[in-house]
């Protein structure tokens, strides 16, 4: 019966995957990709495909691809995707090759998310088994979190829009997911490669090194160490085999070695390709410098542009530091609190930097919404879920309207658009906060189950599991 249910589940999973790929292909064949690439929510100065085409043209004209402050991405992307910007096939839409690349990137990301999710779920069930909690959990509905996460990622309108709208977000997301997959499956060169590429493409995934270290050192998500001790000490026996392994430094040293190898490789390639145009320093100034100094103030779905349009020059550097430290100072407390759940920590980090980065887009939100699917079982009683869902739908509908009112009709002003951006930021904050509290509630529930069980085993009565 279980096997049949699983089989049906997997068939409907593949049906949904194929449906979403077909839907993307249909949208690609619309004229001009539905003009999605001109929306500020989809294409930012970092992810815009038009800028990549411009950078490629500049490179082909023997000029630095960063001239004119149009292109701010990696020179390797330029080499890989540049020829796709000019290649045209008769009778097909203009950028069909690059759209196909994005679709494939999305598919690969979804498969990796599924694999990681399955990995996570197996590990978690194993730890629950070692805590002798499996019987309680088996009664309630457990969803295959890998499948759910992959489907959320594929069928999310944000992902579809980012894929069809010709931005480089699908590739950046693929790099981040590759890193997390490698870390979960203990494939250290793969994790190092993903981390180096993700950091190289956009600066912010660098903070994912902390969850990756925890993943490699200890393994995937598990309840806190204290619970294990409680469980087994109260039983009176310390069964060593049932305890999860301690922190191991070996994989981390190997990870450091491999990330060094990959970063040297990538930097050497970039240095060679930019030899005539100022070398690596030019690249760092135009990519990381551009991200950190927020030079381009064109509107997007984030909150930085509005503020930096009106800040005085004297205070500009101060506020730049404030906004970036806003991301950095949350790293340590979250790491302390959630160090036993590195994948969840990665999700929270991704959500935070997708919200607070200099040029956010819906492609970044697509990433953390997909990763959210790994924790559906833990988030089953999250508060405000309907409010958040309606909020996301509302913001994604209103934001283009406000943009149109402001820019095209002239009957609105920047405040209209920034209002939707602020609401969006608030929604994301609520999501993160409620997510963390849902996870902590889940752990409290587990602790109650364990302590309740031990109490009952002492007193000999059966306890009822709280819903």
């Amino acid at each position, binding site marked *: 019966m279980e096997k049949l249910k699983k089989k049906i589940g997997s068939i409907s999973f593949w049906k949904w995957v194929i449906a979403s790929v077909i839907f993307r292909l249909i949208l690609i064949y619309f004229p001009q990709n539905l003009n999605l690439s001109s929306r500020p929510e989809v294409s930012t100065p970092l992810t815009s495909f038009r800028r990549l085409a411009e950078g490629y043209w500049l490179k082909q004209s023997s000029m630095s691809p960063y001239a004119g402050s149009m292109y701010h991405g990696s020179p390797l992307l330029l080499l890989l995707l540049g020829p796709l910007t000019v290649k045209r096939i008769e009778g097909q839409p203009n950028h069909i090759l690059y759209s196909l690349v994005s679709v494939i990137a999305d598919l690969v990301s979804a498969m990796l998310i599924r694999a990681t999710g399955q990995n996570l779920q197996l590990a978690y069930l194993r730890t629950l088994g070692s805590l002798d909690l499996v019987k309680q959990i088996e009664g309630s509905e457990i969803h295959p979190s890998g499948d759910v996460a992959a489907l959320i990622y594929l069928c999310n309108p944000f992902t579809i829009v980012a894929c069809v709208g010709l931005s480089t977000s699908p590739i950046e997301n693929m790099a981040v997911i590759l890193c997390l997959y*490698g870390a979960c499956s203990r494939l250290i060169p793969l994790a190092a490669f993903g981390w180096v590429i993700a950091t190289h493409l956009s600066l912010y995934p660098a903070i994912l090194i902390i969850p990756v270290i925890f993943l490699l050192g200890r393994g995937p998500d598990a309840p806190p160490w204290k619970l294990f001790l409680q469980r087994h000490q109260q039983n009176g026996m310390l069964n060593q085999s049932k305890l999860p392994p301690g922190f191991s430094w070996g994989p981390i040293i190997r990870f450091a070695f491999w990330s060094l190898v990959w970063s040297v490789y990538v930097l050497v390639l970039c240095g060679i390709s930019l030899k005539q145009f100022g070398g690596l320093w030019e690249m760092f100034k135009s990519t990381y410098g551009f991200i950190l100094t927020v030079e381009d103030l064109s509107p997007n779905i984030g909150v930085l542009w509005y503020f930096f349009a009106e800040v005085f020059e004297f205070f500009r550097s101060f506020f730049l530091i404030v906004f970036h430290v806003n991301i950095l100072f949350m790293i340590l407390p979250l790491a302390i609190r959630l160090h036993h759940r590195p994948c969840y920590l990665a999700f929270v980090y991704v959500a935070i930097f997708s919200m607070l980065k200099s040029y956010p887009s819906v492609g970044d939100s697509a990433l953390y919404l997909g990763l959210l699917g790994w924790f559906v079982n833990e988030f089953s009683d999250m508060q405000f879920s309907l409010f958040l869902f309606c909020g996301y739908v509302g913001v994604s509908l209103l934001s283009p309207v406000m943009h149109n009112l402001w820019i095209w009709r002239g009957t609105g002003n920047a405040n209209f658009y920034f209002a939707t951006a602020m609401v969006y930021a608030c929604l994301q904050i609520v999501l993160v906060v409620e997510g963390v509290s849902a996870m902590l509630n889940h752990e409290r529930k587990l602790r109650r189950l364990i302590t309740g069980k031990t109490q009952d085993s002492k007193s000999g009565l059966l306890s009822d599991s709280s819903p």
Partner: protein
Amino acid sequence: METFNNSKPILLFLLLPCLLLYSLIAFNSSSVEAAMHTNNWAVLVCTSRFWFNYRHMANTLSLYRTVKRLGIPDERIILMLADDMACNTRNKYPAQVFNNENHRLNLYGDNVEVDYRGYEVTVENFLRVLTGRHETAVPRSKRLLSDEGSHILLYMTGHGGDEFLKFQDSEELQSHDLADAVKQMKEKHRFKELLIMVDTCQAATLFNQLQSPGVLAIGSSMKGENSYSHHLDSDVGVSVVDRFTYYTLAFFERLNIYDNASLSSSFSSYNPSLLMSTAYYRKDLYKRNLEEVPVTNFFGSVMETIHTDAAYKALSRINSGRFEAQTSLDQSVHHIEKRMPMKVNDQEETHNIIPEGEEGASKCPWSTFWNKFRKGENVDTLVNYGLVAMIPLLVISTWLVQ
């Protein structure tokens, strides 16, 4: 490619005496013939007013649209219209002017720049435009600022007769006035070649008196014949286009900016039975063979572009040498490379592939490779190989370490 580079100085040596000879000959003849064709101008005149002359305004606006579509910008078009049709109270379609009863094209769209309108369309203003003798306060947009390299298209439509053209129902332009004006233009080097196209009754008589060289003229009917309107639009209530202009447009609508249909094909496309008159053209003053002259010499504007990298301080482009050779050869020939912008891309792409082939053919690969690397060539291919090698490296490392 290398043989071409070697033979470049030899070619130049051969060309130099030819160029010297040619310039000597050219110096003796009038200086205008040595001038290169630099720009195209159009003077479009509708000499009628009042609602029942709707078709004359539609004629002129159709030709305005054609000429703009084929490339002449508004700065080089002088449009003279009475302009009382579009917003006439009798116009059922306000602000719209059609030249066909299917109403497919609104000629009075949002891109019409009329230079002389209403009562400004007089014989005096017309002659002032042609000869360039304006009062000082007349703005530049109302002047014909042509030079000795210009090709001018002069199109006139309205009511005419034996050796005259009626202007706005109150004055006439006579054929010798026109011939005088053209002669003045020639003296003042205001054109290189002039094409006069007239669509009125007995149009061919209007250029009986022309004598200046370099003038080509075509009229819709000969002496004693009328030019007829093409069809009546029962919705608007008047005839909307004349036959001669209708068939002219039928010829031009098939063209785009890069076509090189010849003038003779244009002139021979008029069928006297369809026109109900004989379209007569006068080419005794025009020295070139009509078969060789593309219509875009007068009706369009395709400029010869010479590509330079002077503004950019980067290293020279891969095929800049090829361009210099081409432009030096082109200067002495009146040949317009219409497809040059598209050729650039093809040449770029083919040239990118060539160095890779050369690399494989060298004898000592490592030293030549290192030399080329230091020179800065083939960098892209090296990085491409590096990128492509990353993936198998990743796969192998993952598989081995596992």
